[in-house]
């Protein structure tokens, strides 16, 4: 499906929670009433100045916002462009995830839900959720694939330290997709008392819209910061895309401008290898986890197990708004392999003294790989998280 891009009319999702043909609410009936209630409460909170004030205050005092927009001088010289990093890695808990979690947990408090559940891949969303639940005194259960529990053990320990219960999920591919299944099963069972804090712009409506709105603080700040010093907008935005929340957060406030946008998916061991997570590049539209979107699936409609060196990108689906932005041509989606991500990882560490998470290292890897196209341009890259959590994996691959 292709559409003509029409910036003026960009008012998605529509009332049915659709971004063009994508999105919607493909969930068991048990959850429908909860989704309608959540949508109503969220739309109320969006206009409620007291809620917005509470959230903004928590972002500032607790999460440490605004995050800097940093000119990466030495990296820029090597790349031949002007690279600006939106430093989401400097937020409390080390990633952009907390922006959304603070919003959703405040909403849960407002709705009187005492129990919070969440899925996590790399552990960053689980960590942010456990953290914020500790702050507000809420019960927290985090579902995490067994494979991810093994490769992100430091985050598991931190979550437990914060008082959350971490439930390893042993079904299917034992990664993020299966953690989402199990969290949805918990929600179906305990929906009356439980708020599901979804970690990305995925899931049934209103989640893709709500998470996008909360993460848009990234793009709004970046736009203001860049304008203030440059008196114009950047040429490019770049961000990694797993579910796609940091990318949407950066892109959304720029959608109606002329700024070019590049989303970088994980190509794993290579696009022809079958071991990748490049949903938009290699997948086909389908339905998983409550919404219609591009999906890695076989010809029988069974979901294919994804692969990425980064647990946060290791997901066979993608947010429905990204599917829409791809089809409409507004955003270009490209890929970086595990190997390119590791190159990006080292590059930023050694040129700027910033160790990135493996997720945004994919975006850096792509910039290195495709540096010619960016020559002379200004680029804002969303540095969505810091790399401490990835030391174990990186040590296995890089012999220093």
């Amino acid at each position, binding site marked *: 499906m292709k559409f003509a891009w029409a910036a003026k009319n960009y008012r998605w999702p529509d009332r*049915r929670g659709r971004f063009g043909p994508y999105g*919607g*609410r*493909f*969930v*068991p*009936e*048990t*959850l*429908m*009433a*909860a989704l309608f209630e959540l949508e109503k409460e969220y739309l109320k909170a969006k206009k409620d100045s007291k809620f917005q004030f509470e959230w903004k205050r928590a972002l500032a005092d607790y999460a440490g916002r605004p995050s800097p927009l940093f000119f990466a001088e030495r990296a820029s010289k090597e790349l031949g462009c002007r690279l600006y990093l939106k430093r989401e890695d400097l937020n409390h808990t080390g990633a952009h995830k907390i922006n959304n979690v603070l919003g959703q947990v405040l909403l849960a408090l407002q709705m009187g839900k005492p129990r919070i559940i969440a899925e996590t891949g790399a552990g960053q969303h689980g960590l942010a959720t456990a953290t914020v639940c500790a702050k507000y005194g809420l019960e927290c259960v985090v579902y995490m694939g067994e494979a991810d529990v093994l490769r992100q053990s430091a985050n598991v320990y931190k979550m437990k330290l914060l008082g959350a219960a971490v439930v390893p999920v042993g*079904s*299917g591919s034992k990664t993020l*997709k*299966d953690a989402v*299944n199990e969290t*949805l*099963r918990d929600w*179906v*069972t*305990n*929906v*009356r008392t439980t708020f599901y804090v979804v970690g990305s712009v995925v899931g049934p409506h209103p989640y893709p819209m709500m998470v996008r709105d909360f993460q848009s603080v990234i793009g709004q700040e970046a736009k203001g910061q860049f304008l203030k010093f440059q008196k114009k907008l950047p040429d490019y935005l770049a961000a990694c895309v797993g579910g796609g929340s940091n990318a949407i957060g950066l892109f959304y406030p720029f959608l109606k401008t002329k700024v070019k946008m590049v989303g970088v998916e994980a190509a794993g061991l290579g696009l022809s290898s079958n071991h990748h997570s490049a949903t938009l590049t290699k997948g*086909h*539209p*389908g*339905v*998983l*986890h*409550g919404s219609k979107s591009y*999906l890695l*699936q076989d*010809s*029988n*409609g*069974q*979901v294919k197990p994804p692969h990425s060196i980064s647990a946060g990108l290791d997901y066979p689906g993608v947010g429905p708004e990204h599917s829409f932005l791809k089809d409409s041509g507004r955003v270009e989606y490209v890929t970086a392999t595990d190997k390119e991500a590791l190159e990006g990882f080292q590059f930023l560490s050694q040129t700027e003294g910033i160790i990135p998470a493996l997720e945004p290292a994919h975006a850096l890897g792509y910039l290195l790989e495709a540096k010619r196209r960016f020559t002379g341009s200004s680029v804002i890259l969303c540095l969505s998280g810091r790399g401490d959590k990835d030391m174990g994996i990186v040590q296995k691959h890089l012999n220093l």
Partner: protein
Amino acid sequence: MNRITAFWKKGKKALVPFVTAGFPRKSRTPEIVLALADSGAHMVELGIPFSDPLADGPTIQASSQVALENGVGLGDIFGMTEKIRTKSGIPLLLMGYYNPLLAYGLEKFGKDASNAGADGLVVPDLPPEEGEELSKVCRKHRLSLIYLIAPTTPPERVAKIDAASTDFCYCVSVTGVTGLRKNLSGDLKDFLLSVRMRTKKPFVVGFGISTPEQVRHVAPYSDGLVVGSALVKMFLQEKNGKAALRKACLLISRMTRRLNGTG
């Protein structure tokens, strides 16, 4: 009129066993369905396996996993349906998640399912709001599209779902996934009575029904019962397939007797 419409015309209550297609082996599915029909089942729900069955508990997840490892696709399932149809006129409901249907193509799915002798369809991750397209296909090919009602469904929505559903509705007995439960909720009776007040069509009750005793308790408040995990579990636990099938048939015949108040 398809076989489901015809069944409800008789005014009887329905006992509906659930069978995962292709579990424990592809070749056994028609035999299992036919044996359950012979034991008194009134309708059979044939489960289409999916890699991510988020409305299912561990038992049906495990059977789906085995079925997928056996390489079962929709083509195979239509083959099984045809085979069952050569020997039995029992109403057949296909139950499957939306994505495999989408991948097959909704129109082609409707046509092939109908030609193979299936009568209806339950899609656990498709609420009526998202069902327009499939509903059109089902009408065209005379397949019943059965929507679900949950304990969390608000009263005014129950009536809406009843109107959107063809022939009957599927009431989920608990907030939760499929699977055995020792005790059904005490509120179940109230819930079913409130559904009765707001529906015009018959409804069956499923999720958690595993014993003849539960059948006896729930039967007066519903038009039928679905039994899934309890049967699937027999095939998971019992290595000898013939023995598992004998046990399953025994359970179904005992449940049928309870349903009609003669056991």
